[in-house]
């Protein structure tokens, strides 16, 4: 990787220049909207110019809090071309959480929906020095200098749930991201005729494939907004009308489509690839999907935000009727190397369970401003940086990894990482909560249900409705517990720790 113009920027520079009259992005809002590569290039340039006019330098960070839109993509590309790193957050996430993230990594500028600017500014720990109207209801805020020095070659920071209660920023360099995107183009046959889905929000790492694999191919990307993306009845016709050829999402969304999307009524025959990642796909729902969409190739991808996808498995043509075990996560991708460590240090014997660790081009250099967490997650071995995934796997006879479980208290909900500890920390901030514990249970429909156990100062607990509203003000939607249970005190183990196993039995 040389200089800030390489990496991701190199991947999309040519199509932006050479495919000026071809459609790059499509979005269905009140009306169908689209932009050509040439128009996208101009809008990215306008954003880059606005950043530079605000004094944004290479190595700075730029916050993106816009809902998914043509402007948000132009803002991301403009940020990268300015040599800065983008920090995407959920446009519907609590303003306090987004402000924490923007202050944590000291973004120099942030682009927000005009209507949401006031709420965010009120939570920011810094003054706004100026604003710049970008049109399309987007406002660029120029902020007082914040924490952190410029970082060379940083492409983006994705904040994920942190077990101590605060989200932590995974830093991804241009080389990290571009190595993954190049691998996808080796594995799949992608070209300018392909029409890609962009289902995941930009703060979720599935979006990296959507954005850069499609732009690199010179294809068309269908931007699917968060509300649209949750509605199977709206999504299914979009897939047909837009003749999508590549679909990538979490299994949760595909399950929702199978069960509630009336897929039998739509023509999805243009699909060539169905890619899924982020969580386990129950074979029952995968079988139903393959029956409705028989022609595309299906891939199960696996990898944490810290590495992006590192293993891949192609699902066989037929999912046997009696299969209940999820499919393997597959074999190691060509841009990385993996090992399985038993007891944290030595290589596991064949078939033995152990933690999957990974080294190579896509592995993060660490968490933003959290040297201790970085030291826990990364280690040096034979001159390489290895990331401990925290995922326990075994290798089957065919050389495919099989996901067994987690080493810690992280769970996946709708593909999003959720640290149960972050939910607990948020509940503890309620003034009347004495004790709080969260457990995750398997759920037939949603995959995982989260139950919170709470103990209250005077034994009087608020209604479920009040608790859910409290949570929406403090946590992103995917972290809000499904159920609340109230106890006089939490059960403890003999070492006086919260007895999560007993709580699971009580839930």
């Amino acid at each position, binding site marked *: 990787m040389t200089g800030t113009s390489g990496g991701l920027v190199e991947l999309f520079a040519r199509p932006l220049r050479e495919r000026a009259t071809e459609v790059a992005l499509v979005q269905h809002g*009140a009306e169908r909207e689209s932009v050509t590569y040439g128009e996208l290039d101009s809008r990215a340039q306008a954003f880059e110019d606005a950043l530079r006019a605000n004094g944004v330098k290479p190595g700075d960070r730029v916050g993106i809090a816009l809902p998914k839109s043509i402007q948000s993509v132009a803002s991301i590309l403009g940020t990268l071309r300015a040599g800065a790193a983008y920090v995407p957050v959920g446009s519907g996430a609590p303003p306090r959480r987004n402000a924490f993230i923007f202050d944590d990594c000291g973004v120099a500028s942030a682009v927000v929906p005009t209507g949401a600017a006031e709420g965010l500014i009120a939570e920011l720990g810094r003054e706004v020095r100026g604003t710049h109207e970008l049109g399309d209801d987007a406002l660029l805020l120029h902020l007082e200098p914040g924490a952190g020095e410029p970082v060379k070659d940083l492409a983006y920071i994705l904040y994920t749930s942190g077990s101590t209660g605060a989200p932590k920023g995974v830093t991804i360099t241009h080389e990290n991201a571009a190595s993954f995107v190049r691998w996808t183009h080796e594995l799949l046959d992608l070209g300018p005729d392909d029409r890609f889905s962009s289902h995941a929000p930009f703060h979720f790492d599935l979006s990296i494939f959507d954005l850069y694999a499609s732009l690199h191919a010179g294809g068309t990307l269908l931007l699917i907004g968060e*509300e649209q993306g*949750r509605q199977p009845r709206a999504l299914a016709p979009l897939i047909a009308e837009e003749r999508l050829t590549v679909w990538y999402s979490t299994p949760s969304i595909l399950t929702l489509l199978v069960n*509630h999307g009336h897929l039998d009524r739509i023509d999805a025959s243009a699909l060539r690839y169905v890619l899924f990642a982020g969580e386990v796909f129950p074979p029952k729902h995968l079988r139903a999907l393959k029956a409705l969409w028989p022609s595309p190739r299906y891939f199960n991808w696996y990898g944490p935000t810290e590495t992006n996808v590192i293993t891949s498995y192609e699902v066989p043509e037929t999912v046997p009727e009696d299969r209940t075990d999820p499919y393997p996560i597959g074999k190691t991708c060509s841009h990385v190397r993996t090992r399985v460590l038993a007891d944290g240090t030595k290589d596991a014997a064949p078939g033995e369970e152990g933690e999957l660790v990974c080294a190579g081009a896509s592995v993060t250099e660490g968490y933003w401003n959290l040297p201790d967490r970085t030291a826990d997650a990364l280690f040096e071995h034979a001159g390489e940086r290895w990331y401990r995934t925290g995922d326990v796997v075994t290798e089957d006879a065919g050389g495919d990894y099989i996901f067994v479980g987690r080493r810690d208290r992280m769970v996946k909900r*709708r593909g999003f990482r959720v640290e149960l500890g972050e939910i607990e920390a948020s509940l503890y901030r309620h003034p009347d909560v004495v004790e709080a514990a969260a457990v995750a249970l398997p759920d037939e*429909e949603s995959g995982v249900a989260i139950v919170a156990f709470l103990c209250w100062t005077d034994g009087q607990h608020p209604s479920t409705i009040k608790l*859910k*509203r409290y949570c929406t003000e403090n946590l992103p*939607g995917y972290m809000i517990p499904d159920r609340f249970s109230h106890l006089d005190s939490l059960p403890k183990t003999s070492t006086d720790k919260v007895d999560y196993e007993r709580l699971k039995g009580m839930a």
Partner: protein
Amino acid sequence: MTDTIEEIQAATKGYIMKEFLPGEDADELSAATPLLSGGILDSISTVKLIGFLEDKYKVEFAAHEVSEDHIDSLEAIAALVQEKLSAG
């Protein structure tokens, strides 16, 4: 004779209480309580609620109507359903 707004609201409330808020005091769920923005309905429960309303009242919701702007409270839902009933 179509259902009144009050009847639609009561039926919707009954469904939400039974399916998503078992054990909750019914007085806590008012006509104006924010359902989507208040975290009471998530994506799957919203899909189920729409399915219930479409089956019961033989109406169809457009994709853009399944959003905070249109169905965030019992009163908004009842008004929208009744609008559909009188239009149909």
